[in-house]
């Protein structure tokens, strides 16, 4: 796959805090492609949101230090003058967030919030802008969009609000949509609607999509490629079917084994022992090392890089490639079966 849209290379994001620097993203590399969906999964705090906020340059420079490269179509966004960055946000990358009620301005009509975007990025009359806003609402499947455009966010249902967010992100027809947990706040049936909508738009307008979620299942449903994040790094990356079908990293194994199956029975789950490390106090070497059932001495020595082992399928694990499948069935050791306080 060559049509790389967004490329993140060796990204570091560090937050200053009274208790020392918090390394929220720590040497992350990712790639999102045109017309495809990149799923980003990982537990809470693994750095998913921060990564893409960094890509949008939406982190507060007063507290966050960002380094590395984030290229959109080859242009490094991190070095772009902020005025030009404004023309990236919106026209080239659209972004939607988890809680659509909080993400919409409560005092402005939704139609105005959309047309405002249009007017900020082009010389367009108020009237045309609002017409296009209505059209955008119609496109995301909102019934009677002209009426809805005149309503305030709190007057809409959750699913509808998320559709408004999507319409707003897409009204400028960007190349990339970053969806940060777009369905977490929604009901199951509504979640399905929204995922289907995003998928539909992706195929219809050839959009690149980044879908951030902590739910493996959600990601597995719509993503073409998946990146699994742990403590600020991607530890496995590859085509969706590969990552979930033949997971390579012990952490991914753990995640999958923790999941109760929809059609499964009462058999005991195999959780990952321990808890994610404090980002202010990362363990040496492999971040997952302390919780890993297959830890080797070398794990504590260096941070393993993300290495592509099969076509498009990379992982960051020191374990020898051969016999990983076998290992998964028979773990070496099992650290204490409880999670310590963070």
């Amino acid at each position, binding site marked *: 796959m060559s049509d790389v849209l967004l490329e993140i290379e060796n990204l570091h994001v560090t937050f200053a805090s009274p208790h020392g620097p918090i390394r929220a993203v720590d040497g992350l590399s990712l790639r999102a492609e045109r017309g495809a969906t990149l799923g980003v999964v990982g537990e809470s705090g693994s750095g998913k949101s921060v990564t893409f*906020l960094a890509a949008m340059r939406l982190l507060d420079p007063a507290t966050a230090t960002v380094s590395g490269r984030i290229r959109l179509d080859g242009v490094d966004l991190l070095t772009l003058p902020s005025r030009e960055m404004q023309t990236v*946000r*919106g026209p080239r990358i659209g972004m939607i967030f988890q809680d659509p009620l909080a*993400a*919409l*301005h409560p*005092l402005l009509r939704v139609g105005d919030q959309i047309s405002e*975007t249009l007017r900020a990025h082009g010389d367009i009359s108020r009237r045309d802008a609002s017409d296009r806003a209505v059209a955008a609402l119609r496109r995301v499947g909102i019934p009677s969009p002209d009426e809805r455009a005149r309503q305030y966010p*709190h007057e809409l249902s959750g699913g509808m609000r998320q559709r408004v967010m999507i319409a707003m992100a897409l009204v400028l027809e960007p190349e990339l949509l970053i969806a940060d947990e777009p369905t977490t706040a929604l009901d199951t049936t509504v979640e399905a609607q929204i995922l289907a909508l995003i998928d539909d738009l992706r195929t219809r307008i050839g959009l690149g999509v980044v879908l951030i979620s902590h739910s493996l299942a959600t990601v597995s449903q719509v993503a073409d490629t998946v990146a699994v994040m742990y403590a600020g790094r991607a530890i496995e990356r590859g085509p969706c079917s590969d990552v979930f079908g033949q997971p390579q990293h012990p952490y991914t194994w753990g995640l999958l084994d923790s999941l109760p199956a929809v059609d499964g029975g009462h058999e005991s789950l195999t959780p990952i022992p321990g808890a994610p490390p404090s980002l202010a106090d990362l363990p040496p070497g492999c971040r997952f090392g302390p919780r890993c059932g297959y830890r080797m001495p070398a794990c504590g020595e260096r941070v393993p890089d993300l290495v592509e082992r099969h076509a498009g399928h990379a992982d960051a694990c020191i374990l020898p490639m051969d016999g990983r499948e076998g290992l998964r069935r028979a773990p070496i050791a099992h650290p204490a079966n409880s999670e310590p306080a963070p």
Partner: protein
Amino acid sequence: MGGECICVMGRYILRRLLWTLVVILIVTLVTFVIFYVLPSGDPAVRFAGKEPTQQVVAQVRRDLGLNHNVAVQYLLYLKRLVVGDKYGWPGLGFSYTTGGAIAPQLWQRAQITLQLVLGAAVIWMLIGIPVGVYAALKPRSAFDRSSLLVGLVFISTPVFWLGMLLLWLFWATLGWLPGTGYVTFTTDPVAWAGHMLMPWLTLSLAFAAIYARIIRGKMLDTLGEDYIRTARAKGLPERRVVTHHALRASLVPIVTLLAVDIATLIGGTVVVEDVFNLQGLGSWVLYGAQNQDLPITLAVTLVATIAVSLLSLMADVIYAYLDPRVRPR
């Protein structure tokens, strides 16, 4: 939604007005009770001169309506309030100490107080909003920290002391500004402003500090909101994000605050009026209360209560207009 919304709003306003009426009744009643049950003097005695005979006192009582029991007097007061008296409507009676009609004085004094309060409000908003916004945009900066500290000093400064200090400095020592007292605007606009400047400053500095603090906090909260991130993610210019999205949301709650503060001050500028010798409502109520001049006290109390109730109602309505979330549905 429109028609029903207005209807609901109307009913809400009606209910609030009803409650205002109840509050007015209670507050005037309390005033009455304080006046009659607690204090020491009989206004009739004073009115009756130095060496009053009991007949004269009785007569004065009758004239002042003090011969009835308190409840009847209160009801009579309410009645006159509603139907008016010989001085016109509303029937506020005449002063026990000067014999002058209350109503014309009330309007005259209310004007002075209103000028004082509104002028001060303009000043404190003009100081408070920019300072608060700027501090919020640069949190923890030197400006932010020093504005917080200076603000706290203002908040901690007793108004009367500040007034005296200003008078001492700018009038008695430097002679830059005219001293206490009041000149009407129409007589001499410059003298008017000169006389009002120190009272305005005195009244507004603490409020400016409080408003700067509140706006800074609201602004910081707002800037942390998801929808601000959304606005930025849409690629809006930072200036528009601040003015259109953050400031707008931050200032809406200020409306309520402002209305209530102004309303409270209408009956509460006693100290400033005292220090600066302004013959407004505040110094009047002080006079009325100290001289047991019930009609004065009641009139100011009434105005103050109505101001508080109506302005806070107004604030709520404006708030509902500005913030669709709180509109009754």
